[in-house]
């Protein structure tokens, strides 16, 4: 019985240690001393190499943050490590807006080629004029 408690205790300890470590791993902050930072110009050059067009370059949470459009013309926001100029996090800025747009297009029947054009031709009556279908639940 005591032995069981010991196992339970140690596994709980391991679990809590893992949970405590998780937020530290999930953090996107950069912890680079200012002395080791590369210049803003270096970030701009790196961006040019990647084919980015930089609209804004700022410092956020100890990292460089670039907003701009990528080589394919999509808007994005990227977090850059100030020492290695490595991309830590990349977020397509207008992805959500794009998705909303897609859904809107899906909802909008005029964007559906199957619907556009030939729908319910009122000139070809389906039912005998003056009658409507009747439904009954039993």
């Amino acid at each position, binding site marked *: 019985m005591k032995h069981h408690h010991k196992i339970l205790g140690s596994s709980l300890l391991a679990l809590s240690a893992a949970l405590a470590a998780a937020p530290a791993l999930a953090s996107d902050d950069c912890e680079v001393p200012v002395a080791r930072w590369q210049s803003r110009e270096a970030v701009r050059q790196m961006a040019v190499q990647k084919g980015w067009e930089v609209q804004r370059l700022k410092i956020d949470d100890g990292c460089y943050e670039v907003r701009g459009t990528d080589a394919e013309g999509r808007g994005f926001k990227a977090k850059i490590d100030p020492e290695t100029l490595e991309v830590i996090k990349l977020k397509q800025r207008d992805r959500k807006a794009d998705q909303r747009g897609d859904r809107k297009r899906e909802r909008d029947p005029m964007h559906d080629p199957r*619907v556009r054009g030939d729908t319910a031709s009122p000139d070809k009556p389906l039912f005998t004029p003056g009658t409507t279908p009747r439904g009954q639940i039993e």
Partner: protein
Amino acid sequence: MNQKPVLTALIAAAVLASPALAQSREVNITTQLKNYGGDGAYLAVYLTDAQGAYAGTLWVAGGKAKYYKHLADWNRLSAGDAKRLAGVTGASVGAGRKLTVTADLADALIDAGYEIRVDAAVEDMRDSPSELRVPLTTDNAGKSQAGKAYIQSLTYQLK
């Protein structure tokens, strides 16, 4: 003496009326639902033509328009039809219940590649667009067809 013109008029009226009668047929569609153990089903009973394009709505069971998007195929295909709900809506159909739809269909629709389609949706259960598709033919009349998820059988009669 006076009866002759009346009789002629009657015959003439009958002759004139008969082509009109021949142009439409009453169709009786009976849909029996399974005991799927859920809320009342939303059903859309509609017709598509030989090319699969939407032709018209026969019946929509279920009163709340906000749920019509779950009858996905019907909702998409009929979106261009502003009158798709004109007088053809009723209550949703409970599990195990039977829905009977009666319509006077144009004769030209029968044996012409048209299909009866049914979309079904139940709250908190899977949507079943095109739950059932039956060609609208004289041969198929009276034959029972089963649906994919909620419809136990659909039978239609031509009169």
